[in-house]
């Protein structure tokens, strides 16, 4: 069953296109919305949550349009990125108020479940103004879960969390996904998405760069052309050895000492560079990947569209 459906959705602000012609379907389980800052992830989440109207295209949650439709919040929970909550309330009061606003039949049970689920029982009686960023994030999740929604949207949920809180949150989202809920979260950190989601949607510059099973997209990311800076005791000898190898696509002497080597097979290059230097009696002094930024990884995915579509 598909819970969230976007068909040709675009959103622009004046002349700036924030989201460009996105078509995606999101079903039960955990889905990561991955992309660098400014890729349009928040815009997508806000549109799904009914807090932004698509400029073009169709967006539905369980068959219903979300824009100007408060009824959608009976089955949808939202954890916004912004840290602002009612800081003058205690954590428990905040979750209780949210349960009452949702008109839960049994407020007490709903509050207890949500607080226990997010491991906030110990801090529930403290004012939110005294909470750390990670605790604020968890109490927001508790409030978003208090009405037991089928769909949970989280905008950068791991921001500000320490490693222990991060693991706890990942475990919670994993459990919620396994229960059959639709969990969609955004992140700009590859490792977060890798640990948590089976399915990812990669966004770059407002476009959907890749979509589908995480492992397939991860393979695509690692098999892209890589550039390394190599410095050795004999750069010319190593350059001659590398030129004859099928995985080497270019070798260039740099202005500083060293070589810039381009390869289309990350794994083979990394395995063979050690062998080549040992066989040639060359001392390897430095081996640095030069284009490992997330932007360059995403940029490659965009350039390889549409063949990069994983599903």
């Amino acid at each position: 069953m598909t819970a969230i459906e976007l068909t040709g959705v675009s959103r622009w602000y004046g002349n700036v296109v924030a989201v460009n012609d996105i078509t995606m379907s999101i079903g039960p389980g955990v889905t990561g919305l991955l992309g660098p800052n400014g890729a349009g992830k928040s815009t997508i989440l806000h549109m799904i949550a009914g807090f932004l109207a698509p400029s073009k295209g169709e967006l539905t949650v369980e068959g219903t349009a979300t824009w100007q439709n408060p009824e959608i919040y009976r089955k949808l929970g939202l954890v916004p990125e912004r840290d602002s909550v009612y800081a003058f309330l205690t954590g428990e009061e905040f979750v209780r108020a949210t349960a009452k606003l949702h008109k839960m039949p049994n407020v007490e049970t709903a509050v207890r479940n949500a607080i226990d689920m997010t491991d906030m029982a110990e801090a529930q009686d403290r004012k939110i103004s005294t909470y750390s960023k990670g605790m604020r994030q968890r109490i927001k999740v508790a409030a978003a879960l208090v009405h037991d929604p089928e769909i949970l949207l989280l905008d950068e949920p791991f921001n500000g969390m320490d490693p222990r809180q991060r693991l706890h949150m990942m475990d919670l989202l994993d459990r919620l996904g396994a229960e059959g809920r639709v969990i969609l979260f955004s992140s700009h950190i590859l490792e977060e998405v890798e640990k948590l989601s089976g399915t990812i949607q990669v966004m770059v510059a407002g476009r959907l760069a890749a979509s589908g099973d995480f492992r397939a997209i991860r393979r695509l990311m690692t098999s892209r052309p890589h550039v390394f800076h190599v410095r050795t005791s004999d750069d010319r000898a190593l350059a001659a050895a590398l030129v004859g190898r099928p995985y080497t696509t270019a070798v260039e002497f740099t202005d500083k000492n060293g070589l810039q080597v381009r390869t289309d097979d990350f794994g083979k290059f990394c395995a063979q560079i050690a062998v080549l230097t040992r066989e040639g009696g060359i001392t390897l002094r430095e081996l640095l990947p030069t284009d490992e930024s997330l932007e360059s990884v995403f940029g490659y995915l965009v350039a390889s569209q549409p063949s990069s579509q994983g599903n």
Partner: protein
Amino acid sequence: MLFNPVVAQLTLRATLGRRRAILFALPAVILIALTLILRASHPGNGTNWPDHVLGDFGFSVLLPFTALVIGTGVLGAEIDDGSAIHLLATPIHRRTIIVTKFAVAAALTMVFAAVPELIAGLLAPGSRGLGFALFIGALAGAVIYSAVFVMASVLTTRAIMIGLLYVLVWEALLANVVGGARILSIAHYSLGIANAIHPDANLQAGLTLSTSVILGIVATVGAIIIATRSLSAFALKGDPT
């Protein structure tokens, strides 16, 4: 249902908990303190200072500024700091949110502006009739101002500045010089009501009771409708590249 007690409770705690609660409590204290000082220094029924204190300060300064701070704060502050999203991501109807916020703003303005006006009227010598009339006028003013200022806070993030311009330029300046400007002056709607209860030339009321009541109702209902529509279209900014 048009009124939600949870929204009202949250709004009350948010408004009274902020430091600026002092900002709107202070003028009320000043009004009463000023009345007490003048009563001690200028006793007797022949004095005309109560008209100036109750009318010029209590009605023309205390009421609109208290209404401005409270009315723009009950929802505007939550929109500005982003906490409004927790309220809006619930199935509560937008109309209920606006009406509840408006009701809280009007009630607080009555407490911090209209009630002090009544207390000052009772304390001032020979001004019970005027004080009571201005109290009723201030109650009406609290309702109309609150609706308009809540609407302004939903429409713009510069609601306080626009409200200040309205009170200082339109109401205090233009409406007293250009007769036609009174048609769009909440202060004159309130004065029209007060003057009908206790006619007083010093109040300089420019509108009749019926005109004041009708225009006041139109302004209040219109502001609530516009605010509801605007809140229904409340949008979060994304991350445009």
